[in-house]
């Protein structure tokens, strides 16, 4: 039995290494879905909120959190699902937004549409569809470089 339990900061650092299964360029911490990490006696409690109610990645995410923490020696683990306050793209980290853009996904904007094309940076963009390849994205295209791209919806 390990005698010292890892610090909460250490656990956050581990979770920041776990990629989002659908958008692997950002971590679960970048995505803002890890709401709390705390020790209750010898049990580690991790509170997770879903991005969208029906997002199929939610169960995969729980498996990956568990796998990552077990690999780091956590034995007693409790995953808590919390739906309120509901997830918002405001919780996406700045680091996460930068990584999304570099990956070719336009990060969410309060104005409701992408600031510019993630490929050529032109602001001449138009919406193709309100929904994209995952519940959290919409489809847009650039009318300058003519490339389609995903836009991370602002909610």
């Amino acid at each position, binding site marked *: 039995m390990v005698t010292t339990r890892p610090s909460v900061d250490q656990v956050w650092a581990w979770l920041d290494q776990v990629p989002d299964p659908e958008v692997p360029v950002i971590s679960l911490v970048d995505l803002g879905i890890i709401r709390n990490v705390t020790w209750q006696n010898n049990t580690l409690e991790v509170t997770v909120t*879903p991005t*969208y*109610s*029906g997002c199929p990645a939610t169960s995969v995410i729980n498996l990956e959190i568990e796998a990552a923490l077990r690999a780091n020696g956590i034995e007693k683990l409790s995953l808590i699902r919390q*739906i309120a306050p509901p997830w918002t793209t405001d919780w996406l980290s700045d680091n996460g937004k930068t990584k999304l853009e570099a990956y070719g996904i336009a990060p969410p904007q309060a104005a409701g549409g992408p600031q510019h094309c993630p490929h050529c940076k032109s602001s001449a963009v138009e919406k193709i*569809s*309100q929904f994209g390849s995952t*519940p959290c994205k919409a489809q847009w295209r650039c009318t300058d470089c003519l490339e389609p791209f995903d836009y991370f919806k602002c*909610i």
Partner: protein
Amino acid sequence: MNVTGLIRMGDNTLVLGQRLSEWCGHAPALEEDIALANTALDLIGQTQHWLDLAGKREGQGRTADTFAYTRDAWDFRNLLLVEQPNRDFAVTMIRQFLFDTWHLEALRALIDHADPDISAIAQKSAKEVTYHRERSTDIVIALGDGTEESRDRMQGALDRLWPYVGEMFAQDDDDLTDMSALRQGFDLYVTETLFKSTLTRPNSDFAHHGGKTGTRHSEHLGHLLATMQVLPRNYPDATW
């Protein structure tokens, strides 16, 4: 606690989610196919919240899956509107627009519910449904104010489905909030959208009833359930 109100919310999203899933691979354009499937996904996810809470409050060990897969038509408490068949894209989108408009009004009211679990589900769902309504509104306007063919089809769909509007606002003690109080906000939004879409609101407010009380579902619900439930009915121990 009376769980019927929770079951009503969950059955609405379940049955409409299943209906929309029927379009998967068949929608008129790839983008629409993806959008319909994503909307269905949100609705099925919301179903899980509502029916799991219903099972928890009922305290007899039922889960969202038990409710979805092991009840017969007469035990369902969804609105007649959501069990109506897809028919064409016009009927599907008018049904969606009418439902989204009611749904958003209902969820906004439920955000203030005294029960924190009900409020939490409403807060989560309202975000998703705001987006659903934005999309169905855009399509109703685009196809209503579109070609002669698209306008005819949209008006036909509106005339066909309008008799299912009244049930959404028929209030009884099992409801989680006063549904009749939502009618004003619904009418305001629908009138404005129909004006922009050049469609005409039907004159008669005659309404079919019997879905949310379970007394008289349409024949369509049984067919929908037969498809949805076939696997767990035939192989009760199946896991996937």
